[in-house]
């Protein structure tokens, strides 16, 4: 479903602080599987996810999504693909403060022009699945870490994406909540979604919910 060929990514290219975060990655990812990237800090995991998730473009190499080369598309089209096909769960959750959980969840639906009522209905279904219904109208800054993460997950799912990208999803959670997250992951697989995540956490990497673990070091893939 996702193919990467000879992906390189440089930051500050041509300047004295030029830095190559990815040094030629070849990788093919299957539909409907959970893939975990692990590796030391600075090895390029997050950078790789931003490329796959259309948040940025590679310096060289190709990214193919469902057979289509998306690495050279202009920003508008990348945004379209990102909105339709990818859902993000960020490490810092990145919820918008001052808004309720519900309002945060329906935000990605705005640019699609789906009627508000429909979005709210969809959000309530997600809240139910994530056992969050009672907190739907609470401001996000009042929620606990685990609740915030579930709001972030609901937000990632509101446009019903095929791929879910989660960067360090359990970094801010304790063991119990991490296990809960892994259970949610299994639900994703059951629903046929493709999941890409990064983690240092053995609990994640060794979990049965994860189908494939890919190791990274210095911007290259290594055997895990």
């Amino acid at each position, binding site marked *: 479903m996702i193919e990467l060929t000879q992906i390189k990514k440089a930051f500050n290219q041509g300047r004295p602080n030029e830095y190559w975060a990815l040094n030629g990655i070849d990788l093919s990812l299957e539909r409907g599987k959970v893939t975990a990237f692990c590796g030391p800090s600075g090895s390029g995991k*997050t950078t790789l*996810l*931003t490329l796959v998730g259309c*948040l*940025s473009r590679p310096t060289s190499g190709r990214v193919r999504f469902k057979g289509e080369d998306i690495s050279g598309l202009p*920003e*508008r089209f990348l*945004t379209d693909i*990102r*909105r*339709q096909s990818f859902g*993000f769960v*960020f*490490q810092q959750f*990145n*919820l*918008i*403060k*001052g*808004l309720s959980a519900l*309002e945060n969840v329906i*935000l*990605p*639906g*705005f*640019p*699609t*022009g*789906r*009627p*508000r009522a429909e979005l709210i209905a969809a959000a309530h279904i997600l809240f139910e699945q994530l056992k969050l219904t009672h907190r739907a109208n609470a401001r996000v800054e009042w929620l606990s870490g685990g609740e915030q993460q579930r709001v972030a997950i609901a*937000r990632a799912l509101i*446009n019903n994406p095929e791929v879910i990208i989660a*960067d360090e999803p359990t970094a801010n959670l304790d063991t119990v909540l991490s296990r809960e997250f892994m259970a949610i992951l299994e639900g994703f697989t059951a629903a046929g979604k493709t999941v890409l995540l990064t983690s240092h956490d053995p609990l994640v990497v060794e979990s049965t919910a994860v189908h494939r673990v890919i190791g990274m070091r210095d911007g290259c893939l290594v055997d895990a």
Partner: protein
Amino acid sequence: MNVWLEKQRHLIDFTLASLARRKTKNLGLLLVYTLLVAVLASLTLFTNALRSEAAYVLAGSPEVILQRMVAGRHDLIPPGYFDKIGRIRGVQKKEGRLWGYYYDPVLKANYTFMARPAEEVADGSIMVGATLARERGLAPHNTISFRSYSGKLFAFEVASVLSPDSELLSADLILLSENDFRAFFEYPAGHYTDIALSVANPQEVRNVAAKLSEALPDSRPILREEVLRTYQSIFDWREGIMLTVLAGAIFAFSILAWEKAAGLSAEEKREIGILKAIGWETGDVIRMKMWEGLLISLSAFLLGLVAAYIHVFYLGAAVFEPVLKGWAVLYPRFALIPAVDGLQIATLFFFTVFPYTAAVLVPIWRAAITDPDSVMR
């Protein structure tokens, strides 16, 4: 189309929620903004109303006023002068007028005394301007005395107070009979202050003036249209001063707007990044911020305009009075006739709403075009 509408609704919803989140900041901004619009709009409404007021007042005055000049100064019209005018084509009516100024030490103000025919004002009685009546506490049937320039005391009964329709110019006016006028000022019999001529056809006014100058070389005809123009330029000049001051105000405001906008907080920048990462287009972000700017500037504009309207037409432009009025020593506390000029309002709109929205959009645009991958870090 439906999708587009739905999107705009979403954007406005979100904008309202965002505005509510930063209540104090936005309310403060709205307040300053409203104040600025109110001041600007007051000025616009006020000068415009004054101008139309003057035009309205002058509409009732004669087309041509003839003064006699001696050594370049206005002098009395001597007996027989009147007949020298003879018949001039186009002149409907000619009338000798009697008027003069009187200094009242009680109010330390100048009044204009004007004689009217006996049918209008009986001997021994006067009609007074509304402002003057208020300042001196006069009501019909009261008696008031004035000491004439020769030192004699004259008592008059107030027959009526002039209707405050055009209070601006009648504020300091006292109408009295011709006999009383001549007695009070010891005006020589047969002399007049000036001559008023009515000309029906506006096209003929200049011809009439030319013929008058020819027949009476020592006279000076004053045309109403010229007086009107003088008034207009006085207003324009005063307005100019105010506009200079206000240009400063606008400038200060632009800095404020710029600072608010340029000082996009780290929080706001992060939010823009989040919105982009979860699938908002650059255009969506900018549109959302544009709604925000428009909501603030439009409500400020409307609130300011309403405040200005009340200030000018109900509170008598209390703030500007000393600056803009005052060729009469008595400040007329008059209610201006509401007159609103669409073009001026449009100009005002352009100069307040537009710069703000632009100032807000530029930095937003800069933040909105950055890559969304920063939110991952």
